[in-house]
């Protein structure tokens, strides 16, 4: 499974002479950091990383703030709304994005939010809500109801109960969900491709495709170096939360 990744790694550190050689090798004979320097020189990578960071962090934070209260209600109240919401989670994952992006493009254009980081962040928030709800609902269910009932007996309303009793216990789940939302937005390509036109606003995945060039002729070394850099944050974060992600997604998939 890891071999293609090792190849990416190897290519990123090869000098041009080895890349042009007839018999490529797994281990670069003369490893170099030149590709990384060149990657930054060829495309606005630092700015793109900044844009990705902004979009991913802000949208993850907003998604969590909006989703946590709703997930709490979905987990605790079983009625038509909660069933509809669960159904929507499944359906929203199943629609071809083109059916949503055209109207979104028109709506955002009407609001003068096409080619705007704010517009992209709005889309990312809404786009990450379904799975944030899905994961968080699972986490809320794992908090014993009895604790909340005790708080209710003392006269606390839902919001009070959520903030003072449930949320602290949910903290690890909330962090995991937020990081997952972050990674998803960091990796996202389609919306960013359609919605952002100005080079200085584009996110990392879109800028990476500029390395490919028109005819698919690419400068392989810098391409590999840039791709590697774009992957590292999500790989690291994913390694941290991976156990919780699989647990949370499964809680949603199997139990809801």
């Amino acid at each position, binding site marked *: *499974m890891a071999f*293609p*990744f090792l*190849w*990416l790694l190897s290519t990123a550190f090869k000098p041009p002479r080895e890349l*042009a050689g007839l018999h*490529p090798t797994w281990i670069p004979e003369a490893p170099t950091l030149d590709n990384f320097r060149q990657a930054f020189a060829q495309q606005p990578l630092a700015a793109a990383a900044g844009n990705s960071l902004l979009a991913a962090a802000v949208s993850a934070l907003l998604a969590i703030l*909006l989703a946590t*209260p*709703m997930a709490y*209600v979905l987990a605790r*109240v079983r009625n038509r709304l909660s069933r509809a*919401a669960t159904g929507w989670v499944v*359906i929203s*994952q*199943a*629609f*071809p*994005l*083109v059916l*949503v*992006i*055209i*109207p979104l493009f028109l*709506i955002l254009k009407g609001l003068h939010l096409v080619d705007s980081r704010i517009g992209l962040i*709005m*889309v990312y928030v*809404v*786009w990450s*809500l379904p799975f944030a*709800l899905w994961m968080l609902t699972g986490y809320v269910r794992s908090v014993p109801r009895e604790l909340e*009932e005790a708080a*209710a*007996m003392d*006269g606390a*309303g*839902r*919001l009070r109960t959520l903030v003072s009793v449930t949320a602290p216990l949910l903290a690890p789940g909330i962090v995991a969900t937020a990081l997952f939302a972050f990674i998803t937005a960091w*990796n996202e*390509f389609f919306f960013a491709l359609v919605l952002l036109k100005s080079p200085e606003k584009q996110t990392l*995945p879109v800028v*990476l*495709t500029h390395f*490919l060039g028109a005819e*698919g002729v*690419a400068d*392989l070394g810098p*391409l*590999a170096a840039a*791709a590697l850099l*774009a*992957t590292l944050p*999500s790989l690291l974060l994913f*390694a941290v939360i*991976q156990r919780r992600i*699989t647990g949370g997604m*499964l809680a949603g998939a*199997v*139990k*809801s």
Partner: protein
Amino acid sequence: MTLATAPRRPTAPAADRAARPRRDLGAWFLVLPALLPILVLSVGPLLYGIGLAFTDAQSGRTQATRFVGLLNFSDLFQDSLFWDSFRIGLIWAFGVTVPQFLLALGLALLLHLDLRLRWLARALAIIPWAMPEVVVGIMWRLVYHPDAGILNETLRDLGLSGAGDGRDWLSGLATALPAVIVVGVWAGMPQTTVTLLAGLQNVPRELHEAASMDGAGAWRRFRTVTWPALRPIALAVTALNFIWNFNSFALVFVLTDGGPGGRTRLPMLFAYEEAFRYGQFGYAATMGLAMVAVISVLLALYLVGRLKGDDDR
């Protein structure tokens, strides 16, 4: 479902009942912050998009958009390029989903057998799962690269230079689709494996032990004990994988951009071109709706299967 099966408290506490109306208002207050954005930027656009499929909407046009009824649908029906991409989409989705499931099932069974290896599997699984699809595409372009790629070099080393010598897998008319399918299988394997592995953990161990005591072999135990317990989750994961694959975009966009000669032009790539390269918003929305038709059938199968799975329990 777990909660539903957990024993309910016999009577709701009196205080809770008294506080009901206030608390339900509170519930709405908690739901609205997420519900409103979903309605405005997700449900709304979806309905709008369905509406657009019946119009001649174009980007940057001065005249007003007109309602054209089923015109787009009859155009689409006669659009041989669309049918090509539809067929390619189905081949791709089956070609990715089926091997992905079989390989993931094998891997999951293996890992379930040997708990000590699970950390390794998790570690390896992280790589394709966490990578941006764009990077997965770039990475495989490097692997497939005719001169600097490791695939052709490996084939040469194996003495299969006839097969691999300087071959450009992603630009060959015959090899492009299989080549992107391999990448699709690779990219989605970990998620499927981890899901199935979790499903295997729900298989009651006692049943397994009882079956081996009765002298059932490995295959029989799989068929009579493991599979029935795994079936609902296997069905769910396959249906969702198929839908995701049918809708996929970024991976193939980066690998081939639909080429050579449209041989890997998935429906999403076609619709994207139509909408954002040629500005045919209405027509592209119609394509989206046609894709929904296929997906709906599958989603229905999935939901029916899941309901049946629930009844079995």
